[in-house]
């Protein structure tokens, strides 16, 4: 595979992952799965960063990926903790069942 085709395919895959992530956030009501979809979106960005970094021959894109991974771990930990607290009072992780604040 030529580098050009590799890059193009990787970027297409990145676009697909991002789109699937967005679609998942919109379709799914299970908060845990929504968080998985957010992970897909972050991974799409990571793949794009690595690909661009190789394509342009500058390394700083890979440094960004490193930071994004750490942030993603922190975000998921906090998000899941919040889900657990909601589950304790509500016994559900369905985002549609949270209506306490709407009027």
């Amino acid at each position, binding site marked *: 595979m030529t580098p050009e085709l590799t890059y193009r395919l990787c970027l297409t895959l990145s676009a697909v992952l991002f789109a699937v992530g967005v679609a998942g956030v919109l379709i799914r009501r299970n908060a845990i799965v929504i968080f998985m979809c957010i992970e897909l*979106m972050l991974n*799409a960005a990571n793949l794009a960063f690595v690909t661009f970094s190789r394509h342009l021959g500058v390394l700083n894109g890979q440094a960004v990926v490193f930071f*994004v991974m750490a*942030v993603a771990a922190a975000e998921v930990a*906090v998000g899941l903790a919040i889900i657990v607290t909601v589950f304790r009072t*509500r016994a559900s992780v369905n*985002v549609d069942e*949270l209506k*306490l604040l709407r009027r």
Partner: protein
Amino acid sequence: MTPLDNLSSLQHYIPDAALASFAVLIVIVDLFARGRSKVVVGVLSIAALAVAGALTLWMPHTGERLFYGMARQDGLAQTFKLVIVGCAAVTLLVSLRTQEVAERLRGEFFALMLFATYGMFLMVSASNLLIAYLGVELASISSYILAGFLANQSRSSEAAFKYVIYGSVASGVMLFGVSLLYGMAGTTDIALMGERLASAHPLALTIAVVFLFAGVGYKIASVPFHMWSPDVYEGSPLPVTAFLSVASKAAGFGLTLRIFRDGLGAEELLASVDWPLFLALLSAVTMTVGNLAAMGQKNVKRLLAYSSIAHGGYLLMGIAALGSSDSSAPTAAILFYLAVYLFMNLGAFFVVMHLAEPSRLGSEEMPAYRGLIRRSPALAIVMSVFLFSLIGLPPFAGFWGKLYLFKSVVDASLVEGGVNGHNFVWLVLLAMANSAISLYYYFAVVKAMLLDRGEEETPVKAHPAFALVLLILFLPTLLLGFFTNVDDFRVDEAPEASASIMAEE
């Protein structure tokens, strides 16, 4: 100005470094503080903010590029930091004695407030999108937890839940936008990016900018990323609500200014991506949606939440005007407006918070406010002044804020070439119409307080310490317009892009 290396940057980074070190110190002190000595933690936190604020005020901010071009200490960062640190300090003072946060969690609460404040510092001084993203995340992650801080209240954990989902999606989209911009420019340095993007594909560039805007748009609660804010504002502990509605919004605007003024302000870029028009449309929709939604609200806290969306809309108007040839006038107007907004909005939120305590009104609903003038004349009048200022009635500070902001947009539209070829006078007219709408719902609260008769007549007394805090917010709301004007808020011009070439290895 060539970027400084890590060691020589430190001396210019003392205010921020002090804040971050204090935040970590508080975590450690809190571990050893038990029972009553938790007060030490609170005092230490306020001292931390005072030190950071004083250092920010006194350090010369001459536009150095620090840490190989990661952060920039310039007048813009300085002003924004002062607004943020002021908001955090007042919020901490008020939350020293709020019952909303459990006693044993105070230490963590203060530490997280400081972390959020440092995250916002990172946002407003960012000259690299990586730092901007990390600042957004640090501020957001701390805020998610702060929003869920009401122990054993499902309202609060629900607010945190909504916040974390909207926030994570928005920052994910933002990151994807950053990756696209990186692909086009080969760098994440904001100023350098602006220079290299001129040859990029216009459509791809537009899409990348829209994605990037999702991250800051959710911070400033701009339509269509505003849905979280009324729910989060209502469910969070009130000090957190006040903090989010002012500091978080200010930080969002700081970053927006950085991105659009420093990065995308070049004329060649304006030709390929017409962000002034995009932001003007968003501004129009945001202020209208915020005001119309606020009209139907019976809960004063929620009303203020929607009205703060509307204020975000007015401010976006100033960002749109940055696309004109002179970007310093709109910048100064935005800074002045935010400084005014700090006092009047915090004041209004704190009155609501104080009245919501069980020993006073015990409610945030409008009917409970009826006849407040008989029960506590001082609180009713102070609240009315805050609300009049939020409407923009002369002679209060809010009026001057709006006047300068509207004037800067009109000026920018009327010069040769307008704002990237557009004339935004229509937007100013719409903003005036919106202010008239806001008169209706703010006045409903004032009417309930001053003119209506309530069932209860028992006097409501404000706590003395709280009265002092309120006075600190009240006097500027009354007098700021007379003692300063927008010219005091002028900061240095957007930096030269070519100077940042050195940022690359």
